[in-house]
């Protein structure tokens, strides 16, 4: 080709027009709103010079509806492509708010479908960076159809490739379904929001005044609805979080998760594990301290931290290998299981199961949260959901009972009989049908009625019950616990346990899918 001839010159000119369209003024528009440009986000996420854009020059469909002039912008408001994150191939679509408000039209949707399709074909993760005004009204049903196809792809890929949604701007109306269908949702505080119906409609229909942030901002979704798993103060940190999360995932459901060399300079403070659980069973403690001491240094990454804090879910590494951790948190609501925590933990377990991430359960649960509110809202169903999720999971599952394990909650938290591979207990464990106080009220009802000091007697009986009936050695001797271990030994025992379970596979008779209570 003649590099001075027309053919090559036309090629270069087109690239110039492209650069102009995505010039500094567009970037400034986003910056002025406290947001990054769609391409800046991609640059932060991907390894240097590894991103390849696809369909950069497509233009919008041009239906002549007479509604308004449609910008002939390249790309139709979304940037798609692939690149490497920490060296691994990942697909992405990043909506561009500066082009037609990032709104979704037929071509925009087709681009997203393209990367979803490609990611599914090659078995690579896909990340959606959402920053969109929603459906492009001018394009009518075509926009809706576009969204629906995107949802369909989300569902087709669910459990096959990891899908992450990062909400970095508005996501309203039907658009919010896609994030809800993906595996994890990130949001940035104050400049992103998600809701089905916006504040203006709420005001009109219900006469309720709410702000965007109250209705569907990052904090709302992190704390109240549980839709957002990770929230950050600003976009850079959000994207760093995405990278961090990805480092725990395999590229697809046939692979095992990646490996990160543990920090060998770690001080061996595992004997501190002995000091964390107090002897007094009514005293709370922070189970995250246990997690931090057992897993690799600084490897724990908590998911849905602010939602249902009475259960802790997150990813961590043991000797470099990724695991999913589910732990009851005694310092919130005494660690009981309720509707919110059942749902949070169940979805987390199923994600780990889909992607071959072994599960570690740290148990200290006195039971389920009582009350009309819970019962009327179906704690039965939701608790059963968690039970189903644990039982169904065929990844390596190891439980360590730290303290309380009573009744139904004991069964639910990955007990041996629903498929726990190794079940350990600490000496402080109390395993029983119900808590000592409740048990003695029933067992010794007669004596308690006839005594002058029922309080004192109850305390004595409870102490005896704790010692003789609820101690972990009984369960150990019967085989429901594999071993009562020294807390300081936990890390080593768990590393060995998971190592031996690396080849685990459970044959199941084939079925379309189970019928998990929803």
């Amino acid at each position, binding site marked *: 080709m003649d590099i001075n001839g027309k053919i090559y010159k036309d090629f270069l000119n087109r690239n110039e027009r492209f650069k102009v369209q995505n010039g500094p003024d567009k970037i400034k528009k986003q910056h002025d709103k406290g947001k990054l440009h769609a391409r800046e986000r991609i640059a932060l996420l991907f390894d240097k010079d590894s991103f390849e854009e696809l369909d950069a020059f497509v233009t919008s469909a041009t239906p002549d509806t007479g509604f308004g002039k449609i910008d002939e912008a390249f790309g139709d408001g979304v940037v798609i492509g692939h690149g490497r994150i920490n060296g691994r191939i990942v697909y992405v679509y990043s909506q561009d708010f500066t082009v037609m408000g990032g709104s979704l039209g037929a071509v925009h949707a087709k681009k997203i479908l393209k990367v979803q399709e490609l990611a599914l074909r090659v078995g690579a993760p896909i990340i959606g960076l959402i920053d969109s005004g929603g459906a492009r009204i001018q394009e009518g049903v075509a926009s809706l159809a576009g969204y629906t196809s995107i949802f369909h792809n989300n569902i087709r890929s669910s459990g096959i490739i990891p899908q992450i949604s990062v909400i970095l701007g508005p996501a309203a109306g039907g658009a919010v379904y896609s994030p809800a269908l993906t595996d994890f949702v990130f949001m940035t505080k104050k400049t992103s929001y998600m809701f089905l119906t916006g504040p203006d409609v709420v005001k009109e229909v219900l006469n309720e005044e709410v702000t965007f942030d109250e209705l569907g901002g990052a904090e709302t979704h992190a704390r109240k609805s549980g839709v957002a798993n990770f929230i950050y103060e600003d976009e850079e*940190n959000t994207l760093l979080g995405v990278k961090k999360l990805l480092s725990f995932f395999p590229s697809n459901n046939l692979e095992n998760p990646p490996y990160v060399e543990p920090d060998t300079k770690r001080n061996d403070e595992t004997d501190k594990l002995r000091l964390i659980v107090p002897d007094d069973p009514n005293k709370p403690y922070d189970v995250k301290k246990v997690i931090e001491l057992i897993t690799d240094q600084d490897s724990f990454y908590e998911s849905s931290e602010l939602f249902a804090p009475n259960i802790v879910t997150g990813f961590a590494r043991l000797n470099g290998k990724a695991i999913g951790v589910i732990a009851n948190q005694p310092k919130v609501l005494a660690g009981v299981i309720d509707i919110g925590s059942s749902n949070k933990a169940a979805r987390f377990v199923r994600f780990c199961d889909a992607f071959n991430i072994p599960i570690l359960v740290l148990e200290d649960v006195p039971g389920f949260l009582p009350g009309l509110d819970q019962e009327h809202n179906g704690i039965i169903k939701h608790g059963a959901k968690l039970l189903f999720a644990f039982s169904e999971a065929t990844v390596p599952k190891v439980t360590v009972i730290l303290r309380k394990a009573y009744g139904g909650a004991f069964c639910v938290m990955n007990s041996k009989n629903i498929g726990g591979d190794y079940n350990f207990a600490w000496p402080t464990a109390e395993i029983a049908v119900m808590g000592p106080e409740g048990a003695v009220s029933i067992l010794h009802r007669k004596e308690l009625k006839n005594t002058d000091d029922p309080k004192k007697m109850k305390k004595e009986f409870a102490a005896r019950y704790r010692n003789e009936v609820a101690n972990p050695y009984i369960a150990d001797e019967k085989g429901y616990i594999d071993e009562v271990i020294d807390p300081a030994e936990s890390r080593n025992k768990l590393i060995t346990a998971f190592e031996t379970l690396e080849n685990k596979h459970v044959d199941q008779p084939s079925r379309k899918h189970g019928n998990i209570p929803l």
Partner: protein
Amino acid sequence: MMFSKSKKSKQKFIACTQKSKKYEFTNPKELYIKQGKENIPIEIISDKQGLVFIIWKKKKYLVDIIEKNQNQYEILVNGVSYPISVESPFSYKRRKYLAKNKEISKVERIQAPMPGKIVEFLVEENQEIKVGEPLLILEAMKMQNEIVSNIQGKINKINFHADDTVMKDDILIEVEK
């Protein structure tokens, strides 16, 4: 203190205080602080007991990170607490933008802190109330709890009556600020 030099060149960090005063540092790993035109070096000493000191301009400061949450730090220097958030040049601009455009919610919803029974309301609709003013008595867990207002405003709506049973987080009163 051992750490490797940055692979990235010229990393700028803007440390912000609560009063939005900012301090800019470029490549802090190079261990100097610029004052005027001079780069004055910093020395970091960590003793056997784990205490960390910074020596700068011949003065010794005890430093300790007492809390850290993403990019928000609470640093103790000589026992005095300084909340600092570390921003990049972009996130710093973003902070300024957000501070200017704060969405001010007009309605404050007073929610039940726990399930219980309403004993009585001490205020009525359209009444002007002050911070700390008692609004209602909620009986829960065998105790009578007085719920007070944490804002100033006018009562827009009272959603329940005396003797009603409420659940946690039920919206009891709406106040217009």
